[in-house]
């Protein structure tokens, strides 16, 4: 039994008819976003004496620091201080898990762009100018840039992870057919529009307040305290909103916030540290690129008997979050398929590049790209449609319903009656008119023109909860004021995903008051402590439930007073539309609040929530890491140019399971945005390093994320109807932040299909990700060569 959590909420409350939850409400800040009135950290007014920071970055990938000469920088116009590792009063340690990453390089540098020092000056321009004048003398050592090379050398940032069930080797050898292969996929820059920013204000007696554009205020608090050599209670971290994050501000924001605090500590003045885009892209982590090797045994129907995988993650110079990222890769390599004999190895390759980090999907997408490539390869080798291979392997009664890590996929009678996986797949293939499209595409390709089309379906099953059980907790603080207005604070952070809106809806629903009466306030470690990162799609599950608990507790107290007032039973009283109603009598919610105050009843409560039922053993990689799964499926149609490799997604159909959506318009936005972001990862977004290990795509002029014209002209999204979450989540909703990103794998699969069409679909395309025009053209050329006379 979980002794921490409040008594479980009565399930029927979550199932009740709702007035505010479940309806469309635009983002709480929308009216201010469009008018330029939403305040981001760099928009906050400057106090007199505010200073600005600029980082000094290493231009060497691997080497020993011999000397740092900052005399010129110090003498440069406007400079107040130049800070190095030796200026840190506490611990020079920023790593979220392993103690392996310094705020400021000390003794050695391990990637180009590593922060070596910090210039503090009166203006940002002066700080930037001075930062270029710092001369770092480095003795170069041999660097390693490639994950496969690091694997050869067995150079890793953390111990291997191994997820095993059955005897894969034996099953592969015994199978009628066997394939081996490799798929490579690149990383991805988050390209949040607001680059990393923090603003630190020194207080009295060593206090420090830090406004940080962070997904994880608690982590910032803990590390700032360590950095300054004080305890956590000296540090308060706040965040009202971020201009996008996507995982890029989960651990990475701590670096920027910590350095701002260091500068504020050293100078005794408020310090602002806003990264310029190029510094941000050079110095902070990205999605992990992967090389995935596989060995698969299967039969003539395409049913997989055994699968061995080596997943080599491009960790970068330190571990950062690579451990849990790999865990998610390994637990999503199965995607929707039952694999009886599995042997999945996860290797964290140490390379001399910036350390990779969390990014929407958190390793899951890479695992899914791999299994889908494997399915595709199996299909071509058997001369069958990939859809048949999928069908032969879906979790279900005929195959099996337990994942390789031991979690049962289906809940209650889902398997027997209402298989959610089947639901989304059937719905999406019918929405997309799959058969008709296939025929049309065959006819188009039969003209043998320059342009060729492709089609693919991508099913997604994604596990919701942090793999590490501890992290699955949320907190909230709710005050009701005497006029009935409500102050809401919770442990999550707002990065654009609409979390604040959803949590406010929950509170307004509980109290039966208008949404506008709930005031959303900045995340603040002084209000809700010891929070988890807003990540893993869990923001509304955890904090929504915590806020539900807090509001419900206050409401229960208020209900007592109302019963007394009306001389009625609780069941006779209803809180709705800002009124507390008992038969034909009513008082306003505000009046009741006033009565409570007069009777000296507390109108404030903290709420807490710990996800039930989950457990995970990281060593054996077994357990029930996920509270539930969400499902989705997409069909994408693409066209490629066989002369130049240019390509485009022409249409996409999506069906996504959001449980009983808390807010359909916000969920729709998450689905569309995630899909387009994933499509960027797999097509136009390419990180490119030169031979010295310098990332040369450090701005939007060279790093190309999708633009408005890249969005498929036909883009149909449906939220699966009538699918309340069978688990007791907040109002039976399901998480939506990450899962739809993986639907975009449909685009990449369709591109492979288009290339494969050149061989009459007999051969699998040799196409890695991202499918830039260059990779597509080379895959076409390779296909022409292999397919020979078929074209």
């Amino acid at each position, binding site marked *: 039994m979980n002794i921490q959590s409040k008594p479980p909420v009565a399930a029927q409350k979550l199932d009740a008819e709702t007035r505010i939850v479940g309806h469309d409400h635009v*983002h709480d800040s929308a009216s201010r976003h469009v008018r330029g009135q939403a305040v981001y950290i760099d928009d906050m007014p400057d106090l007199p004496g505010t200073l600005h920071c600029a980082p000094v970055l290493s231009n060497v990938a691997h080497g020993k620091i011999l000397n740092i000469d900052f005399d010129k920088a110090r003498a440069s116009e406007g400079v107040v201080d130049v800070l190095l590792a030796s200026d840190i009063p506490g611990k020079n340690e920023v790593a979220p898990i392993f103690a392996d990453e310094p705020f400021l390089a000390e003794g050695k540098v391990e990637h180009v762009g590593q922060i070596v020092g910090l210039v503090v000056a009166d203006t940002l321009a002066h700080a930037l100018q001075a930062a270029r004048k710092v001369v770092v003398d480095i003795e170069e050592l041999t660097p390693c840039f490639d994950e496969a090379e690091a694997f050869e050398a067995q150079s890793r940032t953390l111990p291997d992870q191994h997820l095993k069930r059955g005897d894969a080797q034996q099953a592969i050898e015994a199978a009628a057919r066997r394939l081996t292969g490799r798929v490579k996929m690149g990383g991805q820059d988050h390209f949040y529009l607001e680059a990393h920013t923090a603003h630190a204000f020194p207080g009295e007696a060593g206090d420090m307040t830090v406004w940080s554009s962070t997904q994880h205020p608690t982590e910032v608090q803990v590390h700032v305290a360590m950095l300054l050599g004080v305890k956590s209670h000296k540090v308060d971290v706040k965040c009202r909103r971020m201009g996008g994050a996507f995982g890029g501000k989960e651990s990475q924001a701590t670096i920027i916030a910590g350095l701002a605090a260091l500068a504020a500590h050293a100078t005794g003045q408020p310090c602002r540290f806003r990264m310029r*885009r190029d510094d941000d892209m050079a110095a902070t982590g990205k999605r992990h690129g992967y090389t995935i090797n596989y060995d698969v045994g299967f039969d003539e129907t395409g049913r997989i008997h055994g699968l061995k995988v080596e997943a080599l993650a491009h960790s970068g110079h330190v571990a950062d979050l690579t451990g849990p990222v790999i865990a998610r890769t390994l637990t999503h390599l199965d995607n929707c398929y039952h694999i009886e004999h599995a042997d999945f190895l996860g290797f964290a390759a140490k390379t001399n590049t910036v350390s990779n980090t969390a990014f929407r999907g958190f390793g899951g997408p890479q695992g899914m790209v791999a299994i889908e490539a494997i399915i595709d390869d199996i299909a071509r080798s058997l001369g069958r449609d990939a859809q048949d291979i999928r069908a032969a392997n879906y979790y279900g009664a005929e195959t099996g319903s337990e994942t390789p890590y031991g979690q049962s996929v289906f809940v209650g009678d889902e398997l027997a009656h209402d298989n959610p996986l089947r639901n989304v797949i059937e719905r999406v293939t019918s929405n997309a008119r799959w058969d008709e499209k296939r025929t049309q595409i065959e006819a188009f390709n039969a003209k043998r*023109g*320059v342009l060729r089309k492709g089609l693919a379906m991508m099913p997604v099953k994604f596990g919701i909860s942090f793999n590490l059980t501890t992290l699955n907790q949320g907190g909230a603080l709710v005050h009701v004021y005497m006029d009935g207005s409500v102050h809401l604070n919770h442990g999550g952070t707002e990065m654009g995903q609409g979390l604040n809106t959803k949590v406010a809806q929950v509170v307004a629903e509980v109290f039966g008051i208008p949404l506008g009466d709930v005031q959303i306030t900045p995340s603040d470690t002084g209000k809700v402590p010891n929070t988890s990162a807003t990540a893993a799609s869990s923001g509304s599950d955890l904090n929504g439930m915590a806020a539900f608990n807090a509001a419900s507790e206050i409401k229960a107290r208020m209900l007592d007073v109302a019963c007394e007032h009306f001389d009625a039973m609780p069941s006779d009283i209803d809180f709705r539309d800002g009124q507390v109603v008992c038969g034909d009598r009513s008082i306003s919610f505000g009046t009741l609040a006033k009565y409570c105050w007069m009777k000296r009843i507390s109108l404030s409560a903290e709420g807490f929530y710990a996800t039930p039922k989950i457990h995970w053993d990281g060593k054996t990689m077994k357990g029930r890491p996920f509270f539930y799964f969400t499902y989705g499926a997409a069909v994408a149609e693409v*066209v490629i140019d066989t*002369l130049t490799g240019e390509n485009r997604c022409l249409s996409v159909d999506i069906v996504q399971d959001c449980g009983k959506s808390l807010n359909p318009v916000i969920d729709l936005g998450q689905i569309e945005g995630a899909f387009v972001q994933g499509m960027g990862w797999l097509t*136009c977004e390419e990180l490119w390093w030169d031979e010295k290990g310098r990332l040369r795509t450090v701005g939007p002029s060279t790093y190309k994320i999708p633009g408005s014209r890249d969005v498929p002209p036909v883009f149909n999204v449906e939220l699966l109807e009538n699918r309340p979450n069978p688990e007791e989540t907040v109002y039976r909703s399901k998480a939506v932040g990450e899962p739809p990103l993986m639907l975009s794998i449909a685009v990449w699969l369709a591109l492979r299909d288009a290339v494969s069409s050149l061989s009459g679909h007999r051969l699998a395309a040799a196409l890695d990700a991202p499918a830039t*025009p260059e990779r597509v053209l*080379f895959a076409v050329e390779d296909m022409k060569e292999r397919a020979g006379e078929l074209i």
Partner: protein
Amino acid sequence: MTEPIRFSLNGCAVEARCRADMTVLEWLRLEALLRGTKEGCAEGDCGACSVLLKRPDPRGRSAFQAANSCIMLMGQLDGASLVTVEGLAAMRTGAQSGHPVQLAMEENGSSQCGFCTPGIVSALAGLLDRQSGSEDADHTLAEDDIHDALAGNLCRCTGYRPIVEAACAAASQQIAPLPDHPVGSPNAVTGEDSSQMLHPATLDELLALLRQHTDATLLAGGTDISLDVAHARARWERVISTRNVTELRNISENADVLTLGAAVTWQEALPFVAEHWPSFATLIRRFGSTQIRSMGTVAGNLATSSPIGDGAPALLALGASLRLASSQDERTLPLDDFFLDYRKNALRPGEIIKAIHIPLTGSELDERRHAAFRVYKLSKRYDQDISTVCGAFSLAFEGDRVAGARIAFGGMAATPMRCTAAADALLGKPLDGATISAAKAAIAGTFKPMSDMRGSAAYRAMAAANLVDRLAHDLSGETVEVMAL
């Protein structure tokens, strides 16, 4: 005397005393404390800093256009009108405050993190302003127009659909004129003594100033050169702007030649180019973004002499020439002879481009003779990207035989370059398999391209040669570009 910079800001006349080379974004955020306008990249590529700008024009046709305040200098505001997201928010639409685009985006779920939103609002308000002011009142907004207007604005959150929908919704509304308070033409010298902008009004004045101040920075739109300022790599004491030089603002056309003055922007050149070379016009619509095209000039693109500049291959293939002027003399130079080496050109000290001459060859000369022009840009993204390879083909046919050919490429060498060997391979032949192979071999033999983040040498070589195939398919009427589907 250095005068303050005078302009209209959200409908009020203001005088700013500041360095002429301060970026408008910096000024808005740090001096005017208008922090609705955001910095996302400081390189003109994300659009978060977009504002609306109307510049005085000796040709008398001026309208508000979205522009990137991160690479726009305060000196460029002289005599101009600027509207920011705050100015739009102060407009009234019916009983509500705000521009119709703002109201539509608010209602439509068009913002998530909201950081791109002010820039997107500005870009769309610019589109609708031009739309409502357009003579062609029947022109209804097509989705492509919206994509054109948004090509310079990145949104990482929404996937754009709700933004495009909001634009459509706002377009059907009555839209009030944007706040404006014209302040008249710029003073000759504005800014601060330590950083001034000079605004000559005639060519003679410009050339004299250039002779006088040999260390001055010559500025047209600034979409290339001001990146140095935006990245705090450069500060300029004296900037000379070509913008108000009457002679340089001319566009003229006779039976033989289209002449573009050196201060003509891509946006202004577009309709004239579109008349004669639709394929070139398509390229221009992909050139940067609306924001970039409304500032950047054709001459600036050539003077920068980047090997991946998009203007050069098309103009080389079309046989363009340059009129160059200095305080001593004027001369005409074929564009063929202009590019000398990586970012080096034939301009002498004190010499400028005065105009670009593009010879006109009708596309249908007579029954048997016809001409064709195609330019193909290959890049990772269709909109607002720099070319990996850009290939331009200008062919004349007699019957089915090629009677004349000029072929040029960008991205294949240290300069934009013609490929005479490929042209020769086509001459006198029909565009059949053998001819195409010969032309492809000639391209492969001519260029030794390099590898960089935009593409490997192998890709560039293969794709450039394949463009000959594309040309043949294209001229035969086949749909050859993925965007055409």
